[in-house]
């Protein structure tokens, strides 16, 4: 469904992505995992066509979007919803207007149908009754849910999540991860960028580990846990430690 072939990106003399190749299948939850500054968010922006790669192909639903103009890319973009790292909610609008934004701009639905649709999505993300609240009055977890609701508003085939649990407490993180799984169960393809290993393991079908702009290894959790690659071993050290701690706690 999404394929990146030999994608490279530089800002000035600084390489951001180096010859990245990735393949994401329909309906799966694909995790892009790596330390901060590895180039993970850049991959999402390239998939969405917000940034253009310097070289390589970016194929979404069989169409290469690399080099497309902003107008040409719009029909492809309308298949994708995105949840930004800092949510990027429009703070001059209330929850309802944020979630309804795409529908009001691009759909032919009348205002009553839009209100019903917004209400249905807000129920799905457990935010019913928050329609008239302004963004600055919401907690971090609620803002993230509104951002997910906005991304879901037009039933996109693909949803991109940029660090969806960063800055959230463990309870809110878990509820957001559950929400991502529920969204995936509705049939959407999900691409989740994160640096949090436990999140990646708990929801990911496939994991691609990125470091310094290059893909280190792609595979299932099992593949990566058994990897001999020193970077992967270092990155997964936390899991081995947790497992050892758990084992010790149980034996005690």
């Amino acid at each position: 469904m999404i394929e990146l072939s030999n994608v490279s990106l530089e800002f000035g003399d600084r390489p951001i992505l180096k010859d990245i190749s990735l393949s994401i299948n329909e309906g799966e939850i694909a995790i892009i995992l790596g330390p901060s500054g590895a180039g993970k968010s850049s991959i999402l922006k390239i998939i969405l066509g917000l940034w253009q790669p310097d070289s390589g192909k970016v194929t979404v639903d069989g169409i290469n979007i690399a080099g497309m103009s902003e107008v040409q890319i719009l029909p492809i973009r309308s298949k994708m919803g995105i949840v930004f790292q800092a949510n990027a909610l429009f703070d001059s609008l209330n929850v309802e207007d944020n979630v309804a934004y795409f529908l009001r701009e691009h759909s032919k639905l009348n205002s009553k149908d839009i209100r019903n649709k917004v209400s249905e999505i807000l129920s799905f993300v457990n935010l019913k009754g928050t329609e008239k609240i302004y963004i600055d009055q919401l907690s971090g977890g609620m803002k993230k849910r509104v951002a997910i609701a906005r991304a879901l508003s037009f039933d996109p085939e693909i949803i991109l999540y940029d660090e969806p649990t960063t800055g959230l407490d463990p309870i809110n993180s878990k509820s957001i991860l559950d929400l991502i799984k529920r969204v995936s169960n509705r049939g959407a393809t999900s691409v989740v960028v994160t640096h949090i290993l436990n999140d990646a393991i708990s929801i990911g079908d496939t994991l691609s580990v990125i470091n310094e702009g290059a893909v280190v290894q792609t595979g299932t959790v099992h593949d990566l846990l058994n990897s001999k690659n020193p970077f992967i071993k270092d990155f997964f050290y936390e899991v081995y430690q947790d497992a050892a701690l758990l084992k010790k706690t149980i034996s005690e």
Partner: protein
Amino acid sequence: MSGIAHSFKLKIFGLQEYSLMLVEIFKGFPKFLRTWSDAVNEMYWIGARAFLPVLLGGIFVGIILALETGHQLDHFGAKTLVGRTVSLGMIRELGPVITGLLLAARTGAKNASELGAMQISEQIDALRAFGTSPVIKLVIPRTVAAVVMFLPLTAIADLSGILSGMIVTKLSLNVDTSFFWHSALSALLMKDIFVGFIKPFFFAFFISTISCYYGFSTRGGTAALGKTTINAVVVSSLIVLVLDFIFTKVVWELL
């Protein structure tokens, strides 16, 4: 040396980006009606809320102009000509320039900081992700609002400057108001009024588009936002003065 070359390259790149934004503004203008309500909201902030500073600016510039020129003219026994210098000075030069500079500070800072904050918080990317052109949604309504509101604001600055000049001339130089008005009106030609009122359109357009461009170009955090806001205000103010020079020197001579 390489630092200077790099800085020069960045300036040229910035100019190119600004030019591309202008092209997008002209291309997107037919879709302006879709954002009419945003433009009306901006008119309130750019226009109605700027009434008092522009009024006060006009009053004090008018007073200073009348006092300074009045005392000089008095040496030659020509203080009855104060009305002429005040009306010409206000309508041709100082009314548009003082309005332009006040609005470069006010509107320029508003546009650059608002759009800069939206850029930092990825709201601009979100607009693009949801299929909305940030130029059509954010720049065109602000520019239309500025172009529409600058003209009445300039008229307010002109009028308040001339009236305050008249009052101070009467009180300080004992020149009768009828002399002042006669001198003020007889000196004014149609082309004075034309040049005085064509300037605000250009000032408004460039102040708005330059400050929006600086907002879009914000990268980094709050410190970057501060820098781009300062740059937007400084460049907008300089553009007002440069355009004023062009109009005074070139357009005036062509007419």
